[in-house]
């Protein structure tokens, strides 16, 4: 099964909200909504793997790693005062949370 990690993105959340609305209006069943979300997981995982090619570097300007957490094979970091540098643009944030799942064995994680 592809990571459900991306459901907590703008795209994923808006999909879930839309599905919730349809469920409340009883136009679809919750089971179907779940299937849609699973399909979304596959689509977003493959899209990110295949269609995105850019690189980003980030480092704290004068901030630091505030917290780190490793649980269930997933990392959660909170960094302060970081700037993200892409080729085209520079983004500065005062606080950022990074949630990362293990990307090494994505092949084994994808099951039908």
């Amino acid at each position: 099964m592809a990571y459900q990690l991306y459901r907590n993105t703008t795209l994923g959340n808006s999909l879930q909200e839309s599905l919730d609305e349809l469920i409340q209006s009883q136009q679809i069943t919750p089971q179907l909504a779940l299937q849609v979300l699973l399909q979304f997981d596959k689509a977003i995982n493959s899209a990110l793997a295949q269609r995105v090619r850019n690189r980003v570097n980030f480092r704290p300007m004068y901030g630091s790693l505030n917290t780190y957490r490793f649980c269930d094979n997933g990392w959660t970091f909170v960094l302060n005062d970081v700037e993200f540098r892409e080729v085209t643009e520079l983004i500065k944030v005062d606080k950022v949370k990074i949630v990362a799942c293990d990307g090494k064995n994505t092949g084994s994680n994808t099951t039908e």
Partner: protein
Amino acid sequence: MACVNPVPKLYRSVIEDVIEGVRDLFAEEGIEEQVLKELKQLWETKVLQSKATEDFFRNNVHSPVFTLQLPNSLHQTLQSSTASLVIPAGRPLPSFTTAELSTSNSSASFTFPGYPIHVPAGVTLQTASGHLYKVNVPIVVTQTSGRASILHPIQQVFQQLGQPSLIQTSVPRLNPCSLHATAEKPKRIETVLHQPTILHSGTVDRKHLENATSDILAPPGNEREIMSEALLSQPESSQYIRLPGVVFPPQVSQTHVHGEPVLGVAGSMTQNLNGGPLSTGRQGAQHQHMSDIQLRVLKNRMFGCGSVKQPRNTEEPSSLPVSEKDSNSQMDLSIQVMDDDINEIIQIDGTGDTSSNDEIGTTRDVEENEFLGIIDAGDLKVLEEEADSISNEDSTANSSDNEDPQIDVVEEDPLNSGDDVSEQDVPDLFDTDNVIVCQYDKIHRSKNKWKFYLKDGVMCFGGRDYVFAKAIGDAEW
């Protein structure tokens, strides 16, 4: 091209893939195609309304979309001439046609062309994010390169009715005090905002910019509705009525607070609530509330028992004036009354410990004597006297010892309070608008130097989305 944002295309392709992928599922369930279309529509609308991709459906990269909702009276004006919408350099507004204006909804969408636009009064603007603003005054919308923020001269706009006002950005945040009066009059709570430069670069903080899209404000027509919509659409609403960047003082919530801790309340407010000279600190207010409530409960109890126990009657009037005299001793009074009346709920430790040590000392004396007596009533009859003396000594020693530890404890708490990491930091710490969801190739640490090798990530900074195939970073913990 460097300026092409790959996110909208990516999102659109994902949506298409998902919809196509579930088409069969929907068919199997016997669900109509219309539902699928509705799902797609809802999804796209939500993505569009979010700030993740401003140009989700547009080819223009750096122009936000906002919808004009025009009152009917304005139709003819706009249809007849575009003078009210001054477009310099003779550029037409893209996709802004009179045909759209003639619809019953009176709405038209167009992207901000990057040059000043004169907008007459009576125009409602809806941003891509869904915020509604109505034009109160004929206004010129300009795009500046400064930092987007809320303009201070809101009141000036109100005062300048009938006069077109050119308003620029880069004004510091509104002084909450200046808008205190407006808090009570929702009609006046409207903000004049400007187009941010986020359009060109992503360096501007989106938190400011969610308010600073090119919005213009409202005629008196449906101010409250629009204001409520604007307020509801504000994601930052909290205990205070919060407008972009503005936090109204808690006087607004005064009516809702009684017997609850009032945050940031001045001493005058607590006086109003308790009717006596009170400490001005927040802690004081809380204690006063609590002690006041305790006292009232005790009063009720006393009144309830008054008929049964006559000695209490004498105590009642004596206790009441005492409480009225010195509100600061309400805690003492409560403890004293509780000691006298209800021994089983004497609280020796905890919050009731600090106020009257003497009372507690004597209480402990009594308890220890009783305890020793119970253990060996027969043999210790002789020893009771000794025990009493010993217990008195012990109590004195204990009281002294207890006082010292109490004092020490009291002193240590503030001293050592900084050692513990407050639990409150943790939930707040992980609650942020800037989130990256990704996979990691490798996380490396050497002492306190961390290196991150990430991939396939979606970043959301202040609502705006970015993606990356790989991200490398380092940090120090």
